[in-house]
Each structure stands twice: as C-alpha cells, then as structure tokens.
C-alpha cells in the first residue's frame, strides 16, 4: 500500500481516501467477503512496522497522518518525522489478531485489491480498538530506545554469566 500511495503522491494524484489527521495501521488482515458484497474482518493483528521504514517519513510528510499503529517500532528518520509533524506510534500486541478484529466495527471499503488481500488499502472504522501502548511519543520519546538501553546493560551481565568475553 505504502509504495503505491507514495507513487500517487509524487505524481500529484489524489489518494482514494483522505488520510489527513488519520491513523495508519500496519496490518495485512484476513478479510472475508460477505454475501451482501460487504467485508468482515476475521483477523487483523499488526505486521512488523520496520518494513515500512524507508517509506514512512515521506508518507507522514505527504499525507498528514497523526498516528501510526504497528509493532516493533520504526527507524530514527521516521521518529524524527513524527516529532516534526506531530505523529505518534502506537504499539498493538503482535498476533492478537482476533481481539484487534473485534475492535474494527466496520470495513468501510477497500482499494487496490490487485495488490492482494494483505497489501491492499483497507479502510476501517474502529471502535474500542486495542490495547494500544504509546511506544513513540510525538516529541520523540521512544519506549524502544529505553528498552534497548536496558538490554545493552543487561547483555554485558549475561555475557559474564555465560562465560563469554
């Protein structure tokens, strides 16, 4: 979805949906087509956000999203773009796909299905969606950085414990 959206943006084409002020959820959902032509979300946990690292800073800048929902965090350039444009990163529990699906009240539509179900642009109406943890705040504070620092300290201890240099 990201790659095509950026192509549209660079070519001056309008996206099928206005993302300004909205949220992007890094997710390749399982969605079932209903008899009435509508869609029902079966499972919708997050995918690894770092896969979008190279595209996210430009995405945030071009389309004005205010929240990115995913798992695992994102690169420094993305975190910088978040701080610059006022965007947060919300971590949702990886693999908790059924609970996440319960928080999606309605599938308002889908675009770019030619990319395949996991990669299409799904438009969801969320209600009670979560649980969400603010992992990267809009001013750049990152829970992942904090954990990294802790882990680095701990690993030095662990190496001693294992008898490693």
């Amino acid at each position, binding site marked *: 979805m990201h790659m095509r959206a950026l192509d549209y943006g660079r070519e001056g084409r309008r996206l099928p949906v206005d993302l300004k002020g909205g949220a992007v959820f890094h997710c390749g959902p399982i969605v079932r087509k209903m008899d009435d032509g509508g869609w029902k979300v079966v499972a919708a946990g997050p995918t690894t956000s770092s896969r979008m690292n190279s595209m996210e800073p430009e995405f945030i800048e071009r389309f004005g999203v205010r929240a990115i929902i995913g798992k695992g965090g994102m690169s420094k350039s993305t975190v910088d773009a978040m701080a610059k444009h006022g965007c947060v990163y919300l971590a949702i529990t990886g693999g908790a*796909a059924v609970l996440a699906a319960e928080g999606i009240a309605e599938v308002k539509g889908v675009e770019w299905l030619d990319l395949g179900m996991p990669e299409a642009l799904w438009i969801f109406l969320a209600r009670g969606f979560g649980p969400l943890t603010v992992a990267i705040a809009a001013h750049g504070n990152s829970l992942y950085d904090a954990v990294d620092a802790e882990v680095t300290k701990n690993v030095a201890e662990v190496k001693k414990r294992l008898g490693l240099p």
Partner: protein
Amino acid sequence: MTKTKLLEDVTVNLLRTASTSLPDDVLAALRKAEAEETSEIARTQLRTILSNVDVADRHSVPMCQDTGLPLFFVTGRCIPRLEEAIRRGVSRATAEIPLRPNVVNPLTRANPGDNLGKGMPHIHFHPTEADYTEITAMPKGAGSENMSFIAMLTPSQGRNGVKAAILKAVVSAGGYPCPPTIVGVGIGGTADEAMLIAKHSLLRRLDLPNPEPDLNALEIELTEALNATGIGPMGLGGRTTVLGVRIEEASTHVASLPVAVCLQCWAARKASARVYKDGRVEYSREGFA
C-alpha cells in the same frame, strides 16, 4: 473414501487446529510468564495474548492474521500421492478456515491466492519403518521466520562461540519475532541441515527435557540467560523474552561448526496426525513423543 481424500481432510484438520489453538505446554508457559511479570506493559502484552488465544479457540478462528507458510514434517510410511493430497488440503484450508493468502513468487510477488507455489507447501519427509504416516503441520509466520540466523563458526570457537551466536541472534531480533519466543537451535550438519534441525527442534514440547543431558543443561542455561536480557514480551521490556530453548545436533565436518537459530513466535502453532494403513487417524497438538 480414498486415501488421497482422507489425507486431504487430515491436512485441513491439522491446519485448522494449528491455526486456531495452542498446544497445552505453550499455553502453560504463557500463563506462567504472565504471572511472573512485574511491569504493567509486559503484563498487558501477555494478558492480551492469552485473551486472544482464548477467543480464537472458542470461535475456531485463526489467532494471528499471519497464518504463515504451509510447512509440513512427515515421517513413517511413504504414501503415494501424499504431496498432491497435502496441496489440495492447503488450498481448501485457505478458503475454508480461512488462511491468509501468503504464498507469493519471490521476485514478482504475484499471489495465486491459494497458498500454493514453487516448493509450497514445503514438505520434509523422513522415511521410517513405522506402520503409520505421521504428518505435522507447522504454519509459521514471517515475523519470526524473518529473524532466522545462521553462523558458520570455526570449530575452535567451540561451545562459547555457539552460545555467543545464539545470544546475538536473539538480541538483534529484539521485539520483531513477537516474543516471548521459543528458540530453536541447530548445531552441526551442513548449513541447510543446521537450519532444518533448528526448525525441527521446535516440534518438541516445552515441558519435555532434551533427551541428552549435556544439551538439556545448555537449554536451561540459555533460557535463563536470554530472559535476563530484559527484551520482554513484544520487545517492550520484561522478564520473559523466551519460553524455552530447543537444541538439536547433527554430526558435522571436521572443519565446520554451523549454528542456526530458528525463532518461533509466541503463537507456536502446530498439530500432528498419525494415519494408519487401515485409515484410522490419531491427532495430537502436543506431539506424539
């Protein structure tokens, strides 16, 4: 019912069971982890996982949207047209359960929509003298699989080199493989054998010790060490980074020491079936060992 149709049905049943419910030993380990966590963030992740697993099981829907790649380990008697039956089963399972269409061409990314492709389903077959055919489905997602690791050590790096490689693999993976993970380790063989046995090691239940005392001690030592890193559930910090370590060895070349790490996410999905000559089928989520 023809044998092929029976095997096709078995395949669908295995994929449904594996995708919608967790083996008892994995559930027990996750519950224990939740009870032992002291940080609110870590407890929330584990509580959410357990709640999600419960709902998925009750409604028989996949617990994670990444229903993985169709991977199968088969041992025992060789059955004609087994691959054909498994392929049909995977295609049906994709439509019925449903599974997410995950299988694509690696370069063009074309998605046929039925989880069939070149070398997919992946079936590893090891023939034995048993009077049954044992089929294990291990639908494994990309989050964990993308964190696979291999190091071709020199023999002089020895045991410490092996420990260092495993530590490096888990620490650099961080939160990406959806911890708490099960760490599959393959030591020895060739590069591909090491990776294969690392993945195969994930079939042994968490509450069953390694039959070799030396490797068992190493599994316990590494589990404690990896949990001491503090990576925690989802890499958000906490006391449980791994649910266990599983090691398999293979004899190797005098000049080689391959070490492979295959991480299994918390959604450690698998299911097994034994198909007898008379058409009788036994199922087990935890494995027959």
